[in-house]
């Protein structure tokens, strides 16, 4: 015990001394340390560096960060920015669910938002993102094509519900699933028209995680998802009892608890028609 105390004390001393050293250094701002550049959009006046955790966009929910710089590489952190993703298909164009842009809290340079790409890019069909921003009353526009990869696992469900509305369900969390009770977050959107995909309110989502390779083993103490008033997304708890491939079977319920889509998993029905996939 004495040894342990001594070791702890030593560790604390070392840590304290290290951190005080660091305080004295003036580090350059590097807020993209944990992010990877996906794409840069350069115009005559500005440059937009687009980042994500993975360094690419894929089908489904994408958390996106970007920095806005002038030609002298000075960060502009007071712009008001909007964006619009657009899918350019052979016959038509359509958008997808996306958030407003906000400044990332406690950061000097980063803007953030999310886009739910409901389909990947392919040879003839591609996504663009158009940024519209105003700096000190002056308006600018920048547009660039981005590549959206096909997700190896199903992270998005697009379907028409029993109420004839077209819905989009996007898995947000867990991004790094653990053998534990994971926080689960899903965005539920509906398609009002080709350009408008607002968040659906007051629905519920039932989850039933299963391992098809383990005789459809399920896990205990899952909590079905309900909408949070904080971010309007849907939150619940997802238990994963081991690593491997999990299928999260879903049922979407409206405010009246009527099933809009999805079936209960039973002995005779091994899966729901809507589900997410996780593998870790």
């Amino acid at each position, binding site marked *: 015990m004495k040894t342990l105390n001594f070791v702890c004390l030593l560790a604390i001393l070392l840590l304290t001394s290290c951190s005080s050293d660091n305080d004295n250094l003036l580090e350059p701002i590097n807020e993209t340390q944990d992010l990877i550049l996906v794409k840069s959009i350069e115009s005559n006046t500005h440059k937009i560096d687009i980042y994500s955790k993975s360094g690419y966009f894929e089908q489904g929910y994408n958390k996106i960060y970007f920095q806005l710089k002038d030609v002298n590489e000075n960060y502009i952190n007071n712009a008001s920015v909007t964006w619009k993703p657009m899918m350019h298909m052979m016959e038509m164009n359509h958008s997808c669910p996306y958030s407003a842009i906000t400044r990332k809290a406690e950061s000097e340079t980063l803007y953030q938002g999310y886009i739910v790409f409901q389909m990947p890019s392919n040879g003839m069909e591609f996504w663009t993102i158009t940024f519209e921003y105003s700096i000190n009353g002056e308006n600018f526009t920048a547009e660039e094509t981005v590549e959206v990869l096909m997700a190896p696992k199903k992270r998005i469900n697009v379907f028409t519900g029993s109420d004839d509305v077209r819905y989009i369900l996007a898995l947000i969390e867990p991004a790094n699933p653990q053998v534990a009770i994971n926080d689960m977050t899903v965005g539920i959107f509906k398609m009002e028209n080709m350009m408008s995909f607002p968040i659906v309110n007051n629905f519920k989502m039932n989850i039933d995680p299963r391992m098809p390779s383990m005789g459809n083993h399920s896990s205990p103490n899952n909590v079905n998802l309900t909408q949070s008033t904080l971010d309007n997304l849907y939150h619940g708890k997802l238990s994963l009892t081991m690593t*491997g491939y999990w299928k999260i079977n879903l049922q979407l319920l409206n405010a009246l608890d009527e099933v809009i889509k999805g079936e209960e998993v039973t002995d005779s029905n091994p899966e729901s028609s809507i589900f997410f996939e996780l593998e870790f």
Partner: protein
Amino acid sequence: MKKIILIYLVHIGFTSLVFAQESLTDTIKEVQLKEVVVIGNAASKNQNENKPLGTIDSYLEKVNSVHMIKRGAYAWEPQLQGMTSERSVITIDGMRIYSACTDKMDPVISYLEIANLSEATIQSGQAGAENGATIAGNINLKRKKSGFINDGFKGALVSGFETVNEQKIEGVAAQYSTENFYSNIDFTLRSAENYKAGGNREVLYSQFSKYNVAAIMGYKINDKQNTEVSLIYDEAKNVGYPALPMDVSLARAFIGALQYQNTLTSNVFSNWETKVYYNDITHVMDDSKRPDVPIRMDMPGWSKTLGMYSKIDAAFKKHLFSFNISSHYNTSLAEMTMFPNNPNENDMFMLTWPDVATTYVGFFAKEEFKFKEHWTLFSTIGTALHSNTIRDDFGLQSLRIFYTEMEKSKTRFLKNFSTQITYKNNKWQHKTGIGYGERAPSVSEGYGFYLYNSFDGFDYIGNPFLKNEKSYEINLSTQFKTKNITTKIQTAYFHITDYIIGKPNFSFSPMTIGANGIKVYEQLPYASIFNADFSIQYKLFNSFTFKGKTIYRMGMDNNNNNLPLIQPFSYETALRYQKNMFFVEFLLEGAAKQTNFSPEFGENQTNAYTILNLSASQTLYLNQQRVVLKLGAENFLDTYYSTFADWNNIPRTGRNIFINLTYSL
């Protein structure tokens, strides 16, 4: 010599140490190493063991208070007083060893060989609490050593063969001893193919092979002080478990100890013994030999224990005391990796034991008080601090799926005491005693994660919120002994509160493919276990001996439902002829139909059976070097049978002819 004949039925000699004690003397020691010192006795002792090169398991099985759960031909699980192995403590010279297998496939004794040991001491109930908190008692195995006697160099070779599984046993032992130094080294090799049940039916996956090497060395510093170092290395490979869906590719143990002994010559204190020890167990389950499994998996487990004890004897007036302070630290870790049939999927991994650290610090005292002629009072008292900590965060998070509120650590305080009064005269010995003890849940009971039990087909989930299990016991025994007859009746009753047992929870989905469901360890308000055994031996006309024994057990929960794995009425009767160096024995053993079984645990009724065993031996001297030849037949009539203790009703061995040869030089 008569004493030895019924060596497992009677109290051996007079010992101040223990009560309710049964003792086994291992023949190997006698044969190999003591023959010159005690010529006649050593020889006859050997003859009286049915199968001198049997496993420790087969030796222990003869003790009335022990029965063995069998999952195959190897690594039987000893149950003491009709209770599962969590309720007893098995030690080697007081050393604690924790098994590394989540499925009880490696009881501590499976890491030993008969050549390592001289005897086993079985203490029932709280009398056995010296080496750790227990409900059922303690089995303490004693290392074999020659001691500080001026014997010089000796050696022995043993060789055995058994037809039922083509088991080959080879052993070599050497010792060197002087008045100040001793050293014993032994090596044993066993390997067996599949055994055949009655009617020549092969039992697949019942093969095994193992080797064991051990050394012990003592050095006398001066007249009072000596030190000893003891090492055992045991490695089993390719061990089949026909009753289970998996086998074992490796079971390995390193067991080491360093001891210091001081024979104090104070008026009060005598023998002071201190030991530090370490053991390291690796156990790897695998299913690569099985052609047809729903999913392939690996299940390795590791257990490491560092411990010490220090004990001292004292005498004061008519009181004999012994005090023992012991402490140990164990870590138990087990994993499971399952390989999906779709090779593109990731492996499925979980921690089945989440690297649980157990810290135990105990104090134990016993007293023997001869308060009157013929009358002795034995008392014990003990306390212990027991703490569990989950060291692996992955494992902690896994268990929190079930118990969101659980803490990383849990500390308990355990208490025990017992008292027994004995009356002993020339012919009679009566004993009665009471005891109270507590135990902490085992690693599996507290922290197991989806441990599949192939008996009832349930996945078991540990419960970190279990309280201590508590036992109230009462025991009674009577022995009558004359020159020609010895009879003994022993009974023990245990009222166990907060009895730990797995109960189904159908709101949880099983993990193992095809499992019946999930059982979570819970606590019954109480359970009762009653054990009674009767034994007799009678010597007729000098050369003939008749012996018999019966065992009865009963185990009920608080709703009068049967507890699992309770032995039905069992019996054994034998007739033995012995003259000079020749010995022959006919032995019948059997059990009545099992009427009290537990369907909830997956048990079904086991039929009555009777089998016949025969054995004979002859001791020869060749150039003053002794050769003992032992021949025998077990299950002579080749009966196909299984007992209540056979996991999933796996059949026992059919007719077996064995030959054991020992050659001493």
